[in-house]
């Protein structure tokens, strides 16, 4: 009998659609990071001042920090369920390029977590006094930033699968690596607000994103193999 | 420079000496910790050997 091999693209789409369907059934889990995002950004005015002109100075930074933290919150459980029920082992054994399957999973996670954060950012930013002129730069920088963070977080999640209190460890591992994203992203928003061109930091964000996109799956599959093969 | 100037460090004494002192402390701690790490592993290995030999005899 001739062996049939599923084309990689079909396998990738399957993984993506599976995760989206599973998330649809647990809608509350998807909204939690979003609520966290709003709560954290509310904390800053309460902790400092209600004066919008003062908040505007650090507004871009606050939105970025809140987005990073909210994304990280959701990332810890990325691979947990699949490792526990043996799905990941099947992927490793399947003969499909593991990196692509994991990237599909990360992509689904980003659509469910990162993308809503990006869309919400103008609303949250308005609460911090950010003018409409920066909305575009804010969303674009967060688009690239949350995408990169999903990949970095995917590597971290793959390394820490099954570790007790893994979410704190995951944050400890991923946040230092995400500092450049924060620097360039928040700075781009501030530059746009000051009337300078934010193209420089945006290009750097894009470069980092593509670097993560190319090397990330490699690191993720190495990490998953290490976590699963023991 | 004479001994008085040496300790005085042009007015920066507290900073220079605390920096050098802290460096000495950290290096000493690492010296102690490295030796202890090796020594503990050695005694643990020796103990395991003795237990194994006792079981055989």
């Amino acid at each position, binding site marked *: 009998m001739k062996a049939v091999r599923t084309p990689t693209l079909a396998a990738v789409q399957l993984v993506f659609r599976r995760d989206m369907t599973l998330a649809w059934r647990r809608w509350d889990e998807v909204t939690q990071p979003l609520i966290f995002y709003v709560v954290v950004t509310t904390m800053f005015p309460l902790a400092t001042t209600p004066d919008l002109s003062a908040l505007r100075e650090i507004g871009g930074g606050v939105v970025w920090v809140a987005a990073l933290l909210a994304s990280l919150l959701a990332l810890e459980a990325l691979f947990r369920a699949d490792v526990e029920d043996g799905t990941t082992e099947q992927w490793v054994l399947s003969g499909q390029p593991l990196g692509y399957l994991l990237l599909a999973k990360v992509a689904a996670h980003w659509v469910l977590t990162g993308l809503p954060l990006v869309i919400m950012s103008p609303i949250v930013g308005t609460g911090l006094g950010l003018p409409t002129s920066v909305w575009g730069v804010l969303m674009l920088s967060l688009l690239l930033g949350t995408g990169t963070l999903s990949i970095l977080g995917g590597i971290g999640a793959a390394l820490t699968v099954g570790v007790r209190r893994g979410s704190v460890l995951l944050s400890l591992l991923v946040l*230092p690596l995400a500092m450049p994203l924060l620097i360039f992203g928040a700075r781009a928003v501030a530059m746009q607000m000051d009337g300078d061109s934010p193209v420089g930091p945006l290009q750097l964000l894009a470069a980092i994103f593509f670097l993560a996109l190319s090397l990330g799956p490699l690191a993720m599959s*190495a990490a998953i193999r290490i976590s699963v093969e023991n | 420079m004479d001994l008085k100037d040496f300790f005085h460090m042009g007015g920066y004494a507290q900073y*220079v000496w605390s920096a050098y002192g*802290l460096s000495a402390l950290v290096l000493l701690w690492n010296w102690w910790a490295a030796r202890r*790490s090796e020594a503990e592993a*050695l005694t643990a290995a020796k103990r395991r050997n003795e237990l194994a030999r006792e079981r055989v005899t």
Partner: protein
Amino acid sequence: MWTWFHKLASPPHAYRILGLLAPWFGWASLALILLAAWWGLAKAPADYQQGDGFRILYVHAPSAWMSMFVYVVMAVAAGVGLVWRIKLAHAAAAACAPIGASFTFLALATGSIWGKPMWGTWWVWDARLTSELLLLFLYLGYMALRASFDDPQRADRASAVLALVGVINVPIIHYSVDWWTTLHQPASVTKFDKPSIQLAMLIPLFIMIAGYQLYFGWAVSRRLRGEILRRERNANWLKEAS
């Protein structure tokens, strides 16, 4: 030629050689560090801007240098262990981590102490100190990840992946922090950054760096021997040795 390399990767061999080398590293490093300290504190001329305060350079810069050097050594060792599956390389990476973290902490502390008389504050977000702080986080994350696994093999390999991801990130972090600080350049930074350096001032610096390097050699030899003993618990060579 490769037999020499393979022999080195064998634990009993490495254990023996490290034991022979360590005292040489240790005494040499002690001599050089003391020499550099005396030279830097007493013999080198004072800086015309910072006076005797600049002498902190002789413990700050070597620490900062070592913190980065050790991280690279750690990442290379971890990479070798991961790719060629050499346990000794993983053990070497594990041995490096606490030493590198100590140097990083020291660079931060001495940098902060140096900053107080020069800038008037105990901390300033300049490029070097901020980069050192992020490097400390990378070390701590590495050690935390190692500690979170009971299985030594998983600990070795997972932390190796982390170290490699970290080392790729280090240049990105350096560049981003550098860029971030140039946007708001405080005037006094230049005073801190470049004391007017003459050759007579550089000699104790190089001696101290050499001393610190040998110190690292000694410390990693000792720790690596401990790691070997811990990992080779059931090996025959260990049973027969003592």
